[in-house]
């Protein structure tokens, strides 16, 4: 009967490599370093807060007739998580040693901005004729969704 010790070493190592590769492909996202995971999680949370806050604040503005100082206060409140996200991304990019990941994040952000600009131009022509949600209210959501989707697609394509 063949014992495990009889299997040639090379065959064993290639078997291990194949298993490793299968494992890597299945859990691609788990290969990110602690720093990358922590930073991306923080950025995602901040972007989520941006979206949630923009929805809540827009609803408040639509339902209540607020004075100008309160409107300024709400505006500052609305941009706080956006600024925090920008600083978080800048901090992440500065600390990221992996140039490929840095490249992916920057490319995803550019895709996000590009899609927002394209949608902005499109809606600027269509908006007065339709009763769709004003684009300004959803531009941040479009940016977050498109940038996140691009990053996911790029990571998935490179498994």
């Amino acid at each position: 009967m063949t014992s495990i010790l009889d299997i040639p070493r090379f065959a064993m190592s290639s078997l291990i490599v194949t298993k490793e590769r299968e494992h890597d492909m299945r859990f691609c996202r788990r290969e990110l370093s602690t720093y990358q995971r922590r930073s991306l999680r923080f950025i995602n949370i901040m972007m989520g807060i941006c979206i949630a806050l923009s929805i809540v604040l827009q609803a408040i503005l639509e339902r209540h007739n607020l004075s100008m100082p309160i409107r300024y206060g709400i505006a500052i409140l609305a941009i706080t998580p956006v600024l925090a996200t920008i600083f978080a991304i800048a901090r992440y990019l500065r600390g990221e040693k992996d140039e490929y990941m840095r490249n992916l994040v920057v490319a995803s952000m550019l895709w996000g901005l590009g899609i927002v600009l394209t949608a902005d131009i499109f809606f600027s022509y269509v908006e007065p004729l339709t009763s769709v949600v004003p684009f300004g209210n959803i531009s941040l959501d479009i940016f977050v969704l498109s940038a996140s989707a691009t990053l996911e697609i790029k990571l998935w394509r490179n498994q």
Partner: protein
Amino acid sequence: MKNRLRVLRAERKWSQADLAQKLDVSRQSINAIETGRFDPSLPLAFRFARLFETNIESIFSDDEEVIS
């Protein structure tokens, strides 16, 4: 840019994850470089050369160079 990373890695029986760990980069980086989707910076190319104990030209070559 073409490269011989896959060959050099196979000679040493290293997986992409092994190489990534040795260079302190993500496995995605190694995959992207091997498949030619991403060109490494000069410092990273030097790190590859040091790890494989060879020069950069024997790992990476310009497309035009290959054609000629």
